[in-house]
């Protein structure tokens, strides 16, 4: 080892508490990157593997008739088709306690030979016996049941019946049942018939044999199949082509992860700035040593390399701490994500590029950050280095702010001196302020976005003025039913609406949608309401709300908007037929899939269903969940007494819970990021305050020599810390507003296709202010004590 390397290691170990702090600052960033990327890489790989191993159908072709086995065989024999199966999906209901929840029933033709959308067997029966069903593992929680129990279910046309949960499967293509607040069951056609339904298989699922991930190719093949079945006398009303090979939540996850990765890199950059500040300070402190080294033969390059090596050692130590810990955290993270995405982690290997990126990021970013101060410090001339006597006073004298503050007469002399001290090293002050402001801004941004998210969720209630939505199996004349509902005490409004799945009609024989097999993700619905409605308070972003009950006008929400403009004509498929509409407005909905709103009067005339409704929406005077649950039960009982066939009854609180559950991981992770930011920010404050004081040890000695008491020195130091911290708060708040707008827009667009409203979290601000005040105070206490402990003689001889 070279002699100069001894100096590097001795310098590092001589001030290990400060260096440990620097190691921690880098380690936190590297840890964040590793935890997030590690978690992400495993989850992304497992998500794709899990999803693809279910052999998802390339397309689902929905028909109006039952599909014969012969037709399936005929499609299977078509060139370009690898697999074809018939299938049915029925939206039923299940009774859990006294409440009814939606239950999605997947009707399987042959459990033994099933080759598309195949769930994984876990336990119990592989093929459900008559009057029994297999259940998706995550649904057991919603059902509050276990395998072997019986569950009361009701299909659209049947009576409530008990069905045995005879086996458990895992279907990674479905969101967790508790997230959707619904159940998933797998039954045979005979069981469906036993439950009171008469329908057969009306969906044809196909898998293409070539280019399985090309949407265009799948469309061509699916249309070919549709054409074939049409020739055979079938009526195709929809072709569903979900994004090929992509899990329903894949896009969301990628976007969320990109935010966290950005945050992690920002933490690392903050940590690196801290290292840079510290290295700059060290070089200032050792400027005479640099001069001496240059005098005895060292050139600028050798000096620079020494300090870069010092940084490198800090980085390596940080990596040694951060990488193993980040792998542990990544494991916790991907297991959490797996629960949220209903995945089974089969291979938990974190790819090698993750630690490689950590190593590169954890070394390169800090080295880049210190490069400037190191180059500047190592290029100092020998004379300047040897003549250095500490902070230059020339700048202080001419500093605008220092002069201004020194003239504020009502401030105490100590406070004014503290303020002047803050401005003495402008570059250092800027860096400290930048570090604290960035940490604070990101801390507040994380909490602002989190609160904006909560507020947006609350808009579910302010936009939906109803508390219960009841979807009926058959359109019916509901005037007398609605009157009966209105007479229930506590019910304020009850309206009859109509709804229908739709698609943008391109004039083709069959409409193509992007709906996933769960019928929820990627769906598009048209809703017709009496005008004016008292049960919807839409946020109209452009144009106007529906006003003319007899006009062919629609208002599209942000998920349906696409490239349309106000006044455009749009053709929507309603009951399989193209219908023409004029777009009069665009709304911003929270928690709705693609939606087109129109007038009930016009819609019912168009569809020749005048007087009939397919959906009831009911509002209560008391909107609390407790009351809603009671009232829902009363309405359920009334509907049962009236023998109304209900396909789904969805309370608004259930919808809110479902949406909140979807993004729970994001909100939790944002909070975790905020904590990391706060940690780095506080570390930065502590480090820079210590360094500021260390540099002035000699000056403090002079002050002591001319009569300053320990209390005065302490006050001076603490005020300086508080003033710096205070200044940073203002910058942080401004920066947080900018960042919150950006991230709110990003996350909102991703989750709701609409930006989150800028929210300033007062509690976040208060927390940061408190943290800075306490942190500044705590950060200066030790250096202040240390400054007072050094004897005046020691301080004066300090170099």
């Amino acid at each position, binding site marked *: 080892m070279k002699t100069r390397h001894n100096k590097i290691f001795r310098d590092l170990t001589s001030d290990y508490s400060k260096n440990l702090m620097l190691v921690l600052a880098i380690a936190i960033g590297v840890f964040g990157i590793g935890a997030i990327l590690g978690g992400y890489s495993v989850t992304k790989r497992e998500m794709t593997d899990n999803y693809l191993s279910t052999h998802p159908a390339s397309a689902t072709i929905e028909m109006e008739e039952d599909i014969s086995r012969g037709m399936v065989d005929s499609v299977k024999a078509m060139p370009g088709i690898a697999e074809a199966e018939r299938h049915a999906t029925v939206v039923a209901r299940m009774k859990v306690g006294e409440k009814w929840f939606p239950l999605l029933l997947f009707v399987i033709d042959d459990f033994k030979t099933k080759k598309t959308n195949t769930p994984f067997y876990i336990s119990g029966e592989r093929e459900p016996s008559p009057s029994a069903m297999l259940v998706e593992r995550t649904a057991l929680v919603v059902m509050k049941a276990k395998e072997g129990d019986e569950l009361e279910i009701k299909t659209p046309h049947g009576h409530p019946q008990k069905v045995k949960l005879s086996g458990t499967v895992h279907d990674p293509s479905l969101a967790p049942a508790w997230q959707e607040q619904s159940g998933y069951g797998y039954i045979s056609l005979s069981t469906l018939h036993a439950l009171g339904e008469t329908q057969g298989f009306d969906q044809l699922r196909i898998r293409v044999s070539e280019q399985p991930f090309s949407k265009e190719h799948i469309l061509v093949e699916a249309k070919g199949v549709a054409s074939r079945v049409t020739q055979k006398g079938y009526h195709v009303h929809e072709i569903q082509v979900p994004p090929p090979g992509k899990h329903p939540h894949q896009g969301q996850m990628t976007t969320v992860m990109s935010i966290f990765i950005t945050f992690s890199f920002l933490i690392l950059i903050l940590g690196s700035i801290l290292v840079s500040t510290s290295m700059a300070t060290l070089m200032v402190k050792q400027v*005479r040593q640099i001069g*001496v080294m240059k*005098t005895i033969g060292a*050139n600028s390059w050798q000096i620079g390399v020494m300090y870069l090596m010092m940084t490198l050692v800090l980085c390596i130590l940080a990596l040694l701490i951060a990488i193993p810990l980040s792998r542990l955290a990544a494991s916790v993270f991907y297991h959490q994500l797996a629960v949220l995405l209903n995945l089974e982690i089969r291979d938990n290997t974190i790819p090698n590029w993750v630690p490689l990126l950590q190593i590169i990021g954890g070394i390169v970013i800090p080295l880049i950050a210190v490069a400037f101060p190191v180059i500047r410090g190592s290029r100092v001339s020998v004379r300047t280095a040897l003549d250095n006597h500490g902070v230059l006073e020339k700048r202080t004298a001419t500093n605008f702010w220092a002069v201004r503050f020194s003239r504020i007469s009502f401030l105490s002399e100590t406070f004014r001196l503290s303020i002047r001290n803050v401005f003495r090293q402008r570059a250092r002050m800027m860096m400290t302020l930048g570090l604290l402001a960035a940490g604070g801004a990101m801390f507040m941004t994380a909490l602002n976005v989190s609160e904006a998210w909560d507020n947006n969720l609350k808009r579910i209630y302010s936009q939906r003025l109803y508390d219960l939505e009841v979807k009926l199996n058959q359109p019916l004349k509901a005037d007398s039913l609605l009157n009966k509902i209105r007479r229930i005490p506590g019910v304020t409004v009850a309206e009859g609406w109509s709804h229908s799945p739709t698609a943008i009609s391109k004039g083709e024989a069959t409409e193509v949608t992007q709906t996933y097999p769960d019928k929820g993700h990627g769906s598009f619905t048209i809703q017709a309401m009496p005008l004016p409605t008292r049960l919807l308070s839409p946020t109209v972003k452009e144009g106007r709300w529906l006003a003319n009950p007899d006009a062919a006008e629609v208002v599209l929400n942000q998920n349906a908007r696409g490239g349309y403009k106000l006044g455009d004509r749009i053709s929507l498929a309603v009951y399989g037929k193209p219908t023409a509409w004029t777009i009069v407005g665009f709304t911003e909905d929270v928690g709705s899939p693609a939606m087109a709103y129109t007038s009930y009067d016009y819609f019912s005339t168009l569809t020749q269903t005048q007087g009939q409704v397919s959906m009831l929406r009911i509002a209560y005077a008391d909107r609390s969940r407790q009351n809603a649950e009671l009232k829902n039960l009363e309405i359920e009982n009334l509907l049962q007494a009236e023998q109304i066939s209900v396909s789904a009854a969805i309370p608004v609180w259930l919808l809110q819970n479902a949406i909140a559950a979807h993004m729970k991981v994001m909100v939790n992770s944002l909070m975790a990021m905020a904590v990391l930011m706060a940690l780095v920010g506080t570390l930065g404050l502590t480090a820079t305050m210590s360094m500021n004081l260390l540099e002035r040890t000699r000056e403090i000695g002079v002050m002591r020599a001319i009569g300053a008491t320990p209390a005065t020195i302490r006050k001076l130091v603490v005020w300086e810390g508080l003033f710096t911290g205070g200044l940073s708060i203002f910058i942080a708040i401004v920066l947080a507003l900018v960042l919150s707008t950006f991230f709110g827009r990003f996350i909102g667009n991703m989750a709701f296709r609409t930006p989150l409203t800028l929210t300033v979290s007062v509690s976040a601000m208060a927390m940061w202010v408190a943290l800075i005040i306490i942190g500044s105070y705590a950060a200066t206490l030790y250096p202040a004590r240390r400054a007072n402990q050094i004897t005046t003689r020691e301080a004066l001889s300090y170099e």
Partner: protein
Amino acid sequence: MNHEQSKSQIQLTRVSKSFPLASGDFHALKNVSLTIPSGKLVAITGKSGSGKSTLLNLIAGIDKPTEGSVSINGVQVEKLPESALATWRGKNIGVVFQFFQLLPTLTILENVMLPMDFCNSYPKKERKSRALSLLEMVGIKEQADKLPSELSGGQQQRAAIARALANDPPMIIADEPTGNLDSQTASSIFDLFASLTRAGKTVIIVTHERDFSEYFGHVIAIADGEIVKEVIHA
């Protein structure tokens, strides 16, 4: 070139040095010409602020003249680029400071080995034994593994001299090397410098000490940036 110049190691020709100050330029040296032959113990004397340290810095290449040239063994020092100057200085000039300036986190032995490391002047395996022999020469070999803070002022200055000799430079310059030492220790340091000149090295010392004038073969007195007296002993 005359006979005197051809023998000389150091030659300053019409050297001026000024420093910009807020109140105007400060002229530390004014048109100084000087020739110092090799193998002498040279004293530069003068009051505080007279320009003696500036003169020393110019000879060591620590500073560059505003006007004129500084030639050491035929090398025009002010024309060397910074990195070449550092290596040249490391190999040709040993510097001793008033406050010793040993690196506090390195042992005495490591401090002495450091110049050899920077200049890559001796094979790695030889550096330790050379450093130890230099420490033995200055009389503090037994202190080799101690940190500077554990040594007395005199011992630290001896260590600094050993460090200055590490690369076996032909010239040693010292800025008030005894200014921080008691008279007895100062005397032993001057003895050490004298022995170096006997070994053929040129030693230039900035000093206020009048008690050690018998050591010097060449005394240059400076006042207000000009050489006011130059005494050369045989």
